[in-house]
């Protein structure tokens, strides 16, 4: 198996819309008013025209598609392949995304029009008036990848995974596998999510998962955030030959689905850690986690961190991505990977950990882990 490097990173988030902004640690704000009593984290510092100059292209996309194209372009630019048609033509693309925004005002009008015994007939008639043809294309999950291909030229492969947090984690794991297995030399992997959607908040609210605030006190729970995060993964030999600078090297990635009533995420994470790094480990480690607002998962994460600290004796840092971004759902694991890559290969670099382990645990299911290390 060949080594896999991270050679580019890109991010749009509540903590800034470039990797450098995010790492500088500017505090992100929670908007508690728009969807009170729930909070959301809107993106900060985002310029939709940066990589998508044509208005017509921007109008054809949902907000999370715009975030995704921008973060993908940042990652390609950082890797030095933005605009390199030949390399982009063989670059593979894996995207974690769900459906984009519905037109909730159209939906409201449809619901209002369709009342009474013949509600379905009225509904059919109202839809012919209310629905717009272009909206459909701005909603389909695969059109995130479609727009990245069309606007940035990535066309070697294009696959979209759905499934909330684990979709993002699997994009990373499978992207690494594509390179390690020799099928691809460069992969662009990532995900996106838009929090500013009442129908999505309603669904999480129904499940009792969201944090509430009345201004004075705040209940535990999720604060979902908007954004996108992408990484360029590359065969190390290929990257060396073209003189690309690595942020970090992949040690390994794992995903699993524990029966949480029998095996806690902390135990699962420990097994994943051992399967990735083995028993012997003398490197200093940093942990990027954040339990997405779940007190249960926060306890589990602390238990894993304690075990890591006891074994390696060198847990130098424990960072919460949830504090930085809110919960990015499909984009959460990619955003943590971006943070980890920046911690290893960012401008500063001195005195930090040799390895970073990223945890991503789904709010409903799934436990994943990615371990990156400094390239010597």
């Amino acid at each position: 198996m060949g080594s896999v490097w991270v050679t580019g990173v890109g991010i749009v988030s509540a903590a800034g819309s470039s990797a450098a902004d995010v790492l500088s640690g500017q505090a992100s704000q929670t908007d508690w008013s728009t969807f009170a009593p729930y909070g959301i984290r809107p993106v900060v510092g985002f310029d939709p025209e940066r990589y998508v100059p044509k208005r017509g292209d921007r109008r054809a996309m949902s907000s999370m598609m715009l975030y995704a194209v921008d973060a993908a372009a940042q990652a390609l630019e950082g890797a030095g392949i933005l605009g390199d048609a030949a390399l982009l033509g063989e670059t593979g693309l894996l995207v974690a995304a769900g459906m984009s925004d519905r037109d909730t005002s159209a939906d409201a009008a449809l619901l209002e029009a369709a009342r009474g015994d013949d509600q379905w007939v009225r509904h059919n008639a109202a839809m012919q008036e209310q629905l717009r043809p272009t909206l459909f294309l701005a909603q389909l999950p695969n059109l995130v990848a479609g727009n990245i291909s069309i606007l940035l030229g990535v066309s070697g492969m294009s696959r979209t995974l759905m499934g909330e947090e684990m979709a993002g984690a699997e994009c990373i794991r499978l992207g690494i596998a594509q390179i390690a297995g020799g099928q691809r030399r460069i992969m662009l992997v990532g995900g996106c999510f838009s929090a500013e959607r009442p129908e999505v908040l309603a669904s999480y609210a129904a499940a009792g998962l969201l944090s509430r605030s009345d201004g004075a006190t705040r209940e535990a729970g999720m604060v979902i955030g908007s954004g996108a995060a992408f990484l360029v993964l590359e065969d190390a030999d290929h990257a060396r030959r073209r003189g690309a600078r690595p942020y970090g090297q992949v040690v390994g990635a794992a995903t699993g689905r524990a029966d949480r009533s029998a095996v806690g995420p902390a135990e699962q994470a420990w097994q994943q850690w051992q399967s990735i790094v083995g028993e012997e480990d003398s490197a200093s480690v940093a942990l990027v986690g954040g339990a997405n607002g779940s007190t249960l998962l926060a306890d589990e994460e602390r238990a894993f961190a304690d075990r890591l600290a006891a074994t390696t004796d060198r847990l130098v840092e424990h960072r919460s991505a949830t504090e930085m971004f809110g919960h990015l759902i499909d984009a959460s694991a990619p955003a943590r990977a971006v943070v980890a890559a920046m911690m290893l290969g960012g401008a500063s670099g001195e005195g930090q950990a040799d390895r970073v382990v990223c945890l991503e645990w789904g709010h409903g299911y799934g436990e994943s882990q990615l371990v990156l290390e400094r390239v010597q």
Partner: protein
Amino acid sequence: MNKASTAVAVTGVGLLTANGLDCASNWTRLSNGVSGIRPITRFETEGLGTRFAGCVPDICPDETTIADRHILYANHVAAEAMTQSGISPDGRFAGPLFMAVPGAEHGWEDLFQLRDELAVGAEGLFADPARYERLDRTRTYLRRIDARVALQVADDLGCTGVPLTTFTACASGASAIQFAVEAIRSGETERALVIGTEASLSPELITRFSLLSALSRRNEDPSGASRPFSKDRDGFVMAEGAAALVLESTEAARRRGAEILAFVAGCGEAADTFHRTRSSPDASSIIRCMSQAISDAGISVDTVDYINAHGTSTPENDKMEGKGIAALFGNRAPLMPISSNKSMIGHTLTAAGAVEAVVSILTIVHGQLPPTINYVTPDPELNFDVVPDAGRRQQVDCVLSNSFGFGGQNVSLLLTSAHGR
């Protein structure tokens, strides 16, 4: 450039379409050129531009929600595939699950119910998300969760690991097969279950595709509406359906003495960079996609016996697919048998790649080509042997199955006979 990748064995298949509840009933009708397209009776169609579809036979009550149908259809086809493979005598599948499922949304039947329960007015159902805390939590939450269908199916069948849900629009079923093939080739697993499921037929989806001028409007002649490669084709016919495949490494299948039905010998893919709904005018990504499947299998273009076309019956797809086939196969193109299952069962969208892979395998197993029906007015620009109207006895060992997604994702699979290797 590529050396041949390892072929992966298919040991079980399951099929649910407008033409039947299992492989046997589907094959009888598909090989005899029988259409399953009919007027929609499950929901109100008055006021819709298209009022017919490839509706599957009733296996659940009319009021079953779309999300529940995705799961029911998936479990239905999985049971057939697992039974045939003999891999799971207890009905449990000890391996990973790879699914193709449409994106999760609240169905309108949910929304009407929520509107009435919450007694909301014109300001909109979602204007105050906090109201939702009063509702049946599980129902309202789960319907909007993308992983829900795959998680439920994985739990029902006992599959291991994180179930993967892939969505590449009309290529989704083929992409799911591709993910599973890669997992077996890499040694990550010896076996995998692949399911494509599609039940999103609804007034809203019909309206949305109609607004894009993608659907046939031949309401007076549903069974004649899907006419791939015909000059007078006017759009595709929406359909429901599902298909399942049990895939295994050849070693694992032989070790347990399983009968191998066919092999997935090659996978190819190429994303289009041209336009959100149209292929590159030179069909370059379609050509690249097909030729990658062929080279992945380590064979030459000349070895392909038959093409199971994407063949949607839209003016654009059939033109571009035909252009790609003509360019890749050159002098052989006019002689190559090429047919479209969609002429009989419609376009099963998210499931289509898996449905047509299964039909391709049945084609190999039975030694008979399913026809393209409704081929009355040939398109002079598409000079192919489309196996018109009636099935044809012909042994084929190497089938290319195309799936092209709305949004630019193209996937081709190369399926070969069990005795060919």
